[in-house]
């Protein structure tokens, strides 16, 4: 008994640093954000307690435009799940078949993940430049002058133009996750299916995909929560403009916190982001559990 007790103390002692770090770095800021979200505060002066008024205003005020920002994020999440992940899965399944140059392709597809987002932003700013950008130059050179547009400057095209590099950047990340899963499928399972006459497609459909389902679930959670939190690339490319057409909750939060000095409202958006990310993570887990 004494031994057990002393073991528990050891366990507690060993867990304590991580627990303190977890609480200090994650739980405490969330708690602080939730607390500040109940105030009308500019970040410097006196705080005025307003209860849940910030939450009410967030969902009802057109001037803030949170619902539009949320809609943009959800659209990005949908594109991530239904466009980015299938592409990543396709690449992972192809590379998982031990094709020639597997490692080279793996490195190439993963490269955008390693490059700084600001660099990627600058790169795509140049690609989209209406005067000398590669995209418009290419369109003009093949006679599609009419298709050349001010990609980031018009609200009709800006959202799509921002989504393309966002999706492109993380295809490699999801591909790597799924590739690891594909590689972990026991070869004897594949061989047995092949011996029974299964085609490549059937092996993928009935052997590989069910086997890597937990990884697909993780990828979907990462894609959805990543889309909800998306910030850096959008900030560099358009900063939410033109006319708030590319606004997402994170850019709105920065705008509230540092440009409008509405620290309370900025904290409210932060809390909503946390709630949404947790909510979607739980929902996705539940959907996958049901399917199981």
């Amino acid at each position, binding site marked *: 008994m004494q031994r057990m007790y002393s073991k528990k103390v050891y366990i507690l002692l060993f867990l304590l640093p991580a627990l303190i770090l977890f609480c200090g770095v994650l739980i405490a800021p969330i708690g602080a954000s939730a607390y500040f979200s109940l105030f009308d505060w*500019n*970040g*410097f*002066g006196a705080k005025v307690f307003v209860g849940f008024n910030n939450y009410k205003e967030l969902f009802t005020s057109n*001037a803030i435009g949170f619902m539009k920002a949320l809609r943009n994020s959800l659209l990005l999440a949908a594109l991530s799940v239904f466009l980015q992940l299938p592409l990543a899965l396709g690449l992972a399944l192809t590379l998982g078949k031990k094709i020639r140059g597997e490692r080279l392709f793996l490195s190439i597809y993963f490269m955008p993940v390693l490059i700084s987002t600001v660099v990627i932003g600058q790169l795509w700013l140049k690609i*989209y*430049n*209406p*005067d000398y950008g590669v995209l418009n130059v290419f369109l003009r050179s093949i006679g599609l002058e009419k298709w050349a547009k*001010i*990609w*980031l*400057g*018009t*609200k009709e095209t800006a959202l799509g133009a921002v989504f393309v590099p966002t999706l492109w950047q993380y295809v490699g990340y999801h591909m790597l996750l799924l590739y690891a899963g594909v590689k972990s499928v026991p070869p004897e399972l594949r061989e047995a299916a092949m011996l029974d006459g299964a085609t490549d497609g059937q092996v993928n459909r009935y052997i590989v995909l069910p086997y890597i389902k937990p990884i697909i679930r993780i990828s979907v959670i990462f894609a959805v929560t990543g889309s909800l939190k998306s910030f850096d690339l959008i900030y560099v490319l*358009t*900063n939410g*403009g*033109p*006319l*708030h057409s590319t606004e997402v909750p994170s850019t709105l939060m*920065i*705008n509230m916190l*540092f*440009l*409008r*000095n*509405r*620290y309370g409202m900025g904290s409210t958006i932060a809390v909503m982001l946390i709630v949404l990310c947790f909510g979607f993570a739980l929902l996705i887990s539940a959907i996958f559990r049901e399917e199981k």
Partner: protein
Amino acid sequence: MKKIFALILALCMVFALAACGAQGGSAKPEEKTNEEIVLKLWCIATESDANRPAYLQAIADYEAAHPGIKIEMEAFENESYKTKIKAAMMGGDTEDLPDIFFSWSGAFLGEFVNAGRAQCLDENFKAYADKIPESMLSTTTYEGKHYGVPTTFNIVAMYANMDMLAEVGWDHVPQTYEDLCACCDALVAAGKIPFGCAGMETWCVTEYLEPIIIKSIGYEALDKIFAGEATWNDPDIAKSVDTLQDMIKKGYFDPNGAALGNDETKANFLAGKTAFYQNGSWNTGEVAGASFKSGVGLFPLMNASRSSYNQTIGGPSDVLAVCSASKNVDAASKAAVELGKEICHYNFLNAVGMPAWAVDYDTSSLSPLMVEIGKLVNSCEGLVLFGDTAMAADPAQVYLSYVDQVYGCAIDGEGFVAGLTKDLG
């Protein structure tokens, strides 16, 4: 073996700790002997900023004249600086705060003053009473106390590429709206772009809209609106918006401008791609150095019954302030005033801005374009500070959001007035 290894490891840790302790201990005598005061200065004078040479020169002069004081300048990009300084001020940790910081006058600095983060500089200005007119301190005076040191004085000017204008038969900068339209029509007909405006940075759009508004309703009315003392509900403001949109629809503005930042737009003007560039007079040095013959004027008068040609947007918007939490607040206050004065001096000589301080130095080397700007300033009958500087942060962002919609032609003049009247009163 394990015990020996553990002993060695323990000894290593003891020595490591002792080494850390020794470093801290040796620092004390150094602090005593070294009396150098290091003042941290945050500003937006980055490598590409026209103000940078003036900052560097003023700092070098100050350090040479004050041995024992070292100024460590850290420069940040304009937009990110707004976030950086506010985040630092909110945090309040003195280690992270600068001693002297760049600020925009009006409401931007006012927020720091109200929060008790900016140091009152009244005592320090006493020695400079004859060097700076009180009017130049008006935008940094809160409840009768001075908190900011102007580093320059600027107005919104309409720069022109006279070579491009000459190609379509114009030898002067148009003075009336009819002339401006005729000139722009001629440029458009010749396949040239009259104006460039950076749609990615809304403050650049205000540099076009606000001069039209002031020329329509007059400086007193606009000043009251920015101060929140009068309503936006003025039919002449709606007309001003319609005028700007009319110019956009007539093709007077570079359509690609919507996706460009200010640096690219300015580069297009300097490269001869656009005929006009309306922006702050801090660009004078760069425009004067362009390969074409340059001219300058103000946006034409729109409504003679309420305004005049010599009214414009501008003022001492760029200032240095002192953080009240600075450990060396006295030294920082003295340095801020002297640095502000000298930055202003060098900025004027470098054609980066008009002098907010008295000119007691040789100005014979000034460029002709700067002399022209000087004439415009001297004949000025009324000035209103830039809208996003004059207004507090929240209403300023609401206002900029509407300006954004104006440039994108998402709302017309009536929509602009109705929206701002509803949201800001």
